[in-house]
């Protein structure tokens, strides 16, 4: 089922005018912020397809900035997001691309915080629902509907077994899981969508595992902040 529950049909509460161009854009940008772990110093967003064609009239640019500021879809500050970004000291830049994209409403984020740089490619697929296809150069398949642990680790046997056992021991059910790697024995990314969010203690426990580089928690629940670990 593409749509999982009643609130994917009725909802979200949002600032207009378009669930695809506004609410979906806020949510994509929030995922990007949580992927970086903190508010970026600088963000560059490249818009494709209908995003590129109509972003100014729909306020998609404001919605994307708002998501980077971790605002929810119905935040009353969205129309003033540009000024809010100025005040927060976040530099933003927009570019449009005529190149083909996975979906008519697609955006690619490049985010910077000090020396750290992250990219995300995602699409707004209707009704405020989103599909994240790439985190850095790794392929994923995320909806943002559930709390999601993103693990960057090296491709070593047993790593995932330890992680899934730890989640099980904490009574956290895995709904969906996506694994990608740069190459055998190379850098790998695992995204785990769970029915309930992992605690800070559990994340710290996982972070201490050998071969684990870093962990991010993507959580679009109202007001939730990213957990940079």
């Amino acid at each position, binding site marked *: 089922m593409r749509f999982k529950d009643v609130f994917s049909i009725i909802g979200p509460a949002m600032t207009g005018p378009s669930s695809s161009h506004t609410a979906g854009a806020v949510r994509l940008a929030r995922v990007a912020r949580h992927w970086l772990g903190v508010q970026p110093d600088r963000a560059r967003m490249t818009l494709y397809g209908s995003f590129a064609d109509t972003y100014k009239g729909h306020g998609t640019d404001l919605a994307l900035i708002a998501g980077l500021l971790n605002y929810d879809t119905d935040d009353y500050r969205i129309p003033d997001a540009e000024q809010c970004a100025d005040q927060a000291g976040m530099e933003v830049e927009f570019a449009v691309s005529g190149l083909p994209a996975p979906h008519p409403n697609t955006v690619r984020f490049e985010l910077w915080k000090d020396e750290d740089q992250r990219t995300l490619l995602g699409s707004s697929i209707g*009704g405020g629902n989103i599909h994240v296809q790439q985190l850095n150069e790794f392929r994923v398949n995320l909806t943002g509907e559930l709390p999601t642990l993103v693990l960057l680790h090296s491709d070593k046997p047993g790593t995932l077994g330890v992680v899934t056992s730890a989640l099980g021991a904490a009574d956290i059910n895995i709904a969906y899981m996506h694994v990608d790697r740069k190459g055998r024995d190379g850098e790998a990314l695992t995204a785990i969508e769970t029915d309930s969010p992992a605690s800070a203690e559990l994340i710290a426990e996982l972070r201490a595992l050998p071969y684990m580089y870093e962990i991010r928690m993507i959580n679009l629940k109202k007001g939730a902040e990213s957990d940079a670990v």
Partner: protein
Amino acid sequence: MRFSHLHELGALCAEESTTIGRLMIKEQVQETNTPEEEIFRQMSDYYEVMKEAVHRGQTQDTVSRSGLTGGDGKRLAEYLRAGETCSGDASALAMAYALSVSEVNASMGRIVATPTAGSCGVIPGVFISAQERFGWDDEHMVRGLFAAGAIGYVIANNSFISGAEGGCQAEIGSAIGMAAGAMVELRGGTPEQAIHAVGLALKNTLGLICDPVAGLVEIPCIVRNGLGAVTALAAADMALAGVRSAIPSDEVIDVMLEVGSAMPSKHRETAKGGLAQTPTGKRLTESLTRNIPAKKDKS
């Protein structure tokens, strides 16, 4: 969820002697492992946002960001108060409220996507005008929203709810079908009648293209929300009177998928066809392109 089609939804309601709204609450509890009170509160919050949007659209100026639209919800309510309407006061009020919510949406105000933002006026228009008319309490209305959600869930998973995918039949059409079925239930009709209302409503929007002028959800979307609210009321009346959808509603949903998939892309929210490409549509697009300054590159 234990259902993916309307006939399954109807059968479950019959087996358990319950309404679509109550069944949907139960299913949502099971699916998300969240307490019923929390789910109910979430939907109640959404209903409050809908009421606020109606109020704002009826009392404040709601000029859209582009400047293309605004003020029609108020205009219609004044006309309704002034005298005799052609379509009847209940229809006119539903229409006025639906326009108001859509105008609030276009002005970047707060609304609830039902099922999308482009179609956010239909359900509040129908629900809030009916609540005023029949004196129902909020709890009754919120259960009605769950019924609308159940219908939308089936449509979304078997066809589409976004104009970009399936044309405006998928966007406004879904909202009308959801509102029509929910209205039947709010009035005390059976789940079976509610499901017939969905089919009756959807049949009347098949083939409707998505042709937003300048790509913005304003022209023709706002007006279609107003007219959609009236269609939903009419379909609910037909079903409550005993009219049945001769083509089963699930089959109508399948047809929406077929018709939407066959639509050329220029008629699916690309602004490359339909009203967007009329001489006036092109002129408005061009004037907006000139008036909205490009965002400055700050890096």
